């Protein structure tokens, strides 16, 4: 191998390693910070020789953190399931049936995709207020229950399902809903995985709408609860805050590692083909 090639490869590898280090260092620091006591936090750059669980004890002792976690889990799981069901069902209808008004629905959806969310926040709040859903999980979950993005994702995936399969099922006397449930959904499993992850991340990390809708401390989800903790912050409590941050990001990371392959496929499906 020529010296030049070798040098080029070395530089490439070096740049990649450097970028990887930059990407990982804040995360490593976060993990390390949760193992340090208040005195050690800035004394040692990363890990201290004497690890302690003080931050976690403070976190669960001083604030109802477990409650916030359960709130987030409940809200996110409910929202993901509702979104998944409604998006895939509508996506199936738009992919595999011809019916009156289909074109109009598609056009309507396309038109609203172009309009950023911020346009509807104010009227949406007014509406949710009228429906008496302010400060409730209903008001948090229902307005986001339909994801136009999700419908397009599922329509795209379900278009690939061969029609013959559906016809065969019909001849066997399968009802349309069972076709959706027993044939279309199992075949679209990669897309289900991708959508669940995207939808989970969106709901889990959501800040603006929960911040507007939720008032009672006991209903807070993790992002707004942690943001409130920043406000109460004294120097000594950074450890607690970092512990809260770590526990808040961990579920997403675990889920991502499980669904990684599907996620990348789902993310780039629209962009590369379209």
């Amino acid at each position, binding site marked *: 191998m020529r010296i030049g090639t070798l040098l080029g490869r070395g530089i490439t590898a070096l740049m*990649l390693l450097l970028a990887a280090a930059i990407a990982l260092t804040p995360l490593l620091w976060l993990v390390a910070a949760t193992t340090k006591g208040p005195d050690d936090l800035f004394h040692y750059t990363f890990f201290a020789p004497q690890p302690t669980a003080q931050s976690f004890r403070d976190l669960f002792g001083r604030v109802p953190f477990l409650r916030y976690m359960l709130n987030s889990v409940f809200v996110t799981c409910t929202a993901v399931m509702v979104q998944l069901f409604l998006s895939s069902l509508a996506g199936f209808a738009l992919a595999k049936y011809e019916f009156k008004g289909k074109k109009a629905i598609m056009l309507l959806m396309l038109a609203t995709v172009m309009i950023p969310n911020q346009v509807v926040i104010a009227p949406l709040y007014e509406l949710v207020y009228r429906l008496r859903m302010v400060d409730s999980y209903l008001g948090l979950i229902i307005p986001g229950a339909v994801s136009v993005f999700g419908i397009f994702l599922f329509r795209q995936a379900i278009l690939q399902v061969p029609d013959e399969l559906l016809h065969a099922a019909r001849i066997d006397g399968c009802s349309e809903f069972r076709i959706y449930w027993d044939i279309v959904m199992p075949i679209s499993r990669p897309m289900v995985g991708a959508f669940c992850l995207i939808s989970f991340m969106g709901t889990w990390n959501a800040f603006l709408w929960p911040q507007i809708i939720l008032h009672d401390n006991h209903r807070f989800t993790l*992002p707004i609860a942690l943001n409130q903790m920043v406000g109460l912050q004294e120097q000594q409590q950074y450890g607690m805050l970092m512990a809260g941050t770590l526990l808040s990001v961990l579920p997403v990371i675990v889920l991502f590692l499980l669904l990684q392959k599907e996620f990348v496929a789902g993310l780039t499906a629209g962009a590369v083909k379209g």
Partner: protein
Amino acid sequence: VRQLAAAFAPTVTEKMPRYPGSKGPSFELAKSKAAASRRTPKWFSLQQRYAPYLFVSPFLLLFTLFSAWPILKSLALSVYATNGPKDAVFVGSANFRFLLADPDFHTGVWNTAVFAFFSVFLQLPLALGLALLLTRGWLRGRELFRLIFFSPNLLGQVFVAILFSVLFIPQYGLINQALHALAGIALGTKWLSNPALVMPALVLTALWMYTGFNMIYFLAALQAVDRELYEAATVDGASGWQQFWAVTLPGIRPVAIFVLITSTIGSFQLFELPYIMLNNGSGPNKAGLTIVMYLYNNGFVTGDLGYAAAVGWTLALGVLVISLIQARLTGAWKASEE
């Protein structure tokens, strides 16, 4: 409509098996699923006929109520001044006139535009560069690198903001420590309380968070470029740099345009990062005030939903114009016609 009906008609007859209408209940003892359907042919054909409507109706209902209707309502609301969701007074175009004259709005637009400009022009070349490095054939561990580069994006803006607000602490913060050791900046550099440094801090944070995310798109696009084109270019004696301009860039152009436009739109919606890093405020001298923060403050702190709707529409219009300009400049229209 006629076209729709024409498309509709043949599929109906094709998809729906005709059942002898008057056979009725003589099939009652059927056991298999197939026979079960014949037992009540009327029910079966009815559910076939109405299935698509049933499938889209829950979506359509919620979509109309919580998406389409608020968009229309938002137009109406933007010409009212409100005090919370209850009291509204018609003010005509006053909201928009006030908005365009308000120095705070100007600050918000300027900050957001600066953030968008630097984010896009630092993130995207860097993301493309990383993606190019990762497509080297000899490279081992590509999947692992991809995972590592993408990982910051898993955190969500709120958690990134909290983490970085600690990393940016003067004296002890990791960022100052590192930059002091490597580049000799002052340890006491106050990123989040010096008006001149707020924006660089935000851009850096976004750079850390989103570069890997954009890289995923570039990587997918690069892997889809035809290998033979590179071989042909090599045979023709094209240098690496020439290949990049002649083969790579045209090959990934549609994706590059997509990433450019979507990340610009995303940057213009900046809210959580500054709001949380600056302790639920707009920072020193409002150096971290963004358009969406301005909207939030006016709509949900002051309580003027009408004004917030006006800000929302102004943002939407601005973003639309910028996207169209970008599409025009990059020749996105031509790309889609090809």
